[in-house]
């Protein structure tokens, strides 16, 4: 470990704000692009499942009549 203590790590000789901001933005964007496809897939699958269930219900209703 290069830094002696936590404060030094945060401060980084005056460059801390820049370094941490850059890393924070990067981590944020990476998390966003990692999560986006999963969310899209789940939303699509739940929507499709709902559609299919509704369709099945209407089909069975039509069969009874």
């Amino acid at each position, binding site marked *: *470990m*290069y*830094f002696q203590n936590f404060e030094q*790590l945060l401060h*980084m*000789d*005056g*460059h*801390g704000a*820049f*370094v941490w*901001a*850059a*890393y924070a*933005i*990067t*981590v944020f*964007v*990476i998390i*966003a*692009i*990692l999560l*986006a*496809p*999963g969310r*899209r*897939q*789940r939303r*699509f*699958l*739940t929507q*499709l*499942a709902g559609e*299919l*269930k509704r369709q099945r219900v209407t089909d069975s209703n039509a069969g009874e009549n």
Partner: protein
Amino acid sequence: MWTFFHKLGSPPWLYGISGSILRWLLPLTLLALATGLVWGLLFTAPDFRQGNSYRIIYIHVPAAVVALAGYYVMALAGAINLIWKMKMADVAMRSAAPIGAALTFIALVTGAIWGKPTWGTWWVWDARITSMLILLFLYLGVIALYEAFDNKEAAGKACAVLSLVGMVNIPIIYKSVDWWYSLHQPASIKFTGESSIDPSMLYPLLLMIGAFYALFTCCLLMNMRAELLSREARTNWVRKLALSGGRD
């Protein structure tokens, strides 16, 4: 050999195989990213000229490298779609564009933040920054063109043509911006030569470049899976998947 290509054209097979690839690639990517971040942030010595602000290199350079490579991946997929009419190539091209744009954005923002302590200003019309900005515009153009078409097959082909045109232009743009900058280069800004990078800084950088490539691959596969499902919504395997609650 040919059965491989036939399988590659089959959505359920691709969905399955990409799922089993992601199962080990995704944890590995996250591990490599975390290791690289911690290594770069905590365990490397500061640069003797730039101090600690140089630590941004561990995210800036990998993002820029992979963003450029991503454009070539996208254009190549577009070419495959145009020549062999492979639907999977279209899916890959469509999925690569937003990831590439996000990585270009990371490279630009971290570059700007790095510029403030190093050069004293957020934005410099430096050759590399300017060409990254143009790369972002190229990505956004492809995304905008795709969204503008109602017919998604035509959208894929149009974007393929556009990304191929962009691929031919990238070296020209890069070279001309480089030239332009050397004509106008203000004397106050000096660049530190990167020719002699110490191994203790090089290894975490190489790890991060590898991790970003893996990240690109993971995001590409996940985007492709989501895209595949929504394109194959009328088929039996997708319906089965939806009714089983999304477990494959």
